[in-house]
């Protein structure tokens, strides 16, 4: 516990939120706060620590079990192992995060983090209550199989979580280009929290933005299109139970009404429906692109008429 980066960083989180609120009040920083929204974010953070204690044993047990079969002996004292796990853990985070947006069963546990229409430091603390039960820790198990000690994995995951706190802010504009090229920054992560079709399902990075650049999920913040924060269908109130469980409720209702398509409702992308009556983020993006670039056939038609 003494090595848990999140616990160690908690006083810093509190001081940073106070600074953001006060600096914004005196016009020294850009940050909007609605106290009800902040209350929801902070209570979600508090609840997630309780949920972590209640359900964290599952991830620990699975990691220890897999570690029995580790392929290499890696020492906690090996400096190169810390360098290697920094990159590998960040890649695992990318996989987890991408799946959490592209598969509804994991989206159900991750969506709460995106339900704020604000983007300030309290948004970073709007953490999941159900991720442990939804097995969202699976992508990190290969690290234990390789041979990284479980405590090393836990520390690196904590470092990643702490890093991602400070990027939840509008107070910091763009950083120097070399940093923006490699690191996940406030600008990149603002895009990730956008509900504009242009920004949907982009920038899954934890610490390094390189994974998004490599796998084609990167989108730069566009000054001409300010980010609108939240989810495609924003929540109607600030109820933390609704924030935590609305998508789980939605899945259960869909499966109850139409059990033949249970697999699609559970493992399909958010917004999937058997008859296509709902919209996935892919559908929303396609419709948006079609509006931006009207069909070339339409243009040819005009040309032909003119000719």
């Amino acid at each position, binding site marked *: 516990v003494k090595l848990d980066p999140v*616990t160690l960083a908690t006083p810093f989180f509190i001081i940073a939120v106070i600074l953001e*609120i006060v600096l914004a009040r005196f016009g020294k920083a850009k940050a909007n*706060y*609605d106290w009800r929204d902040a209350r929801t974010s902070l209570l979600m953070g508090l609840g997630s620590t309780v949920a972590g*204690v209640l359900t964290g044993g599952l991830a620990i047990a699975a990691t220890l079990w897999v570690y029995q079969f580790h392929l290499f002996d890696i020492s906690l004292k090996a400096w190169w192992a810390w360098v290697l796990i920094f990159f590998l853990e960040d890649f695992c985070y990318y996989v987890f995060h991408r799946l959490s947006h592209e598969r509804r069963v994991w989206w159900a546990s991750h969506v709460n983090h995106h339900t704020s*229409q604000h983007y300030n430091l309290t948004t970073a603390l709007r953490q999941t209550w159900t991720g442990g039960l939804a097995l969202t820790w699976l992508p990190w198990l290969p690290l234990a199989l390789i041979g990284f000690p479980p405590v090393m994995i836990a520390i690196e995951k904590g470092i990643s979580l702490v890093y991602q706190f400070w990027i939840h802010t509008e107070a910091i504009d763009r950083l120097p280009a070399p940093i923006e090229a490699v690191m996940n920054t406030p600008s990149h992560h603002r895009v990730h929290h956008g509900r504009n079709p242009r920004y949907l399902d982009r920038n899954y990075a934890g610490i390094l933005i390189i994974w998004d650049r490599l796998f084609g999920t990167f989108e730069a913040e566009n000054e001409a299109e300010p980010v609108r924060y939240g989810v495609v269908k924003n929540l109607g109130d600030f109820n933390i139970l609704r924030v935590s469980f609305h998508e789980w409720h939605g899945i259960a209702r869909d499966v109850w009404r139409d059990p033949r398509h249970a697999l699609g409702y559970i493992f399909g992308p958010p917004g999937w429906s058997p008859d296509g009556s709902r919209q996935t983020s892919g559908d929303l993006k396609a419709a948006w692109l079609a509006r931006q670039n009207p069909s070339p056939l339409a243009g040819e038609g005009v040309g032909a008429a003119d000719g």
Partner: protein
Amino acid sequence: MSAAFLIQLLISAVAVAALVGLAAWLGVPRPAPALDEGHTRALLAEEFPDADLSRLWIAPDGAAALARSGEAALIVYRAGDGYILRSAPWTSVEAGVVRGERAILKLDDVAAPRAVFALGEGAAWPPQALFAEAKA
């Protein structure tokens, strides 16, 4: 749960209460003025870019609005300093329940189960202009 964890949790809860208090006292919310026609149409166009809006009605308190697009009702209401937008079958508007000076629409949506509209004293529901359009 250990005693240490419970103490840590208690301290965290106090910190959360203090931060919420600070946000309420010094936090700068986004401007959320009463809805007018221009603002409402802009919100609707952003959310439902393909919708063909006919009539638009804005609640007297400027906190909610209703529009019609074909057989769909387009709903806007304020939550905090943000707005919630939904599309629902037009029939759900006609099924709205009036309680006192408020009309309540049930939405088939776990994330936003109902929309509430302030009505003027003695005003009918659905608002007359929209109802006339619906029957047209």
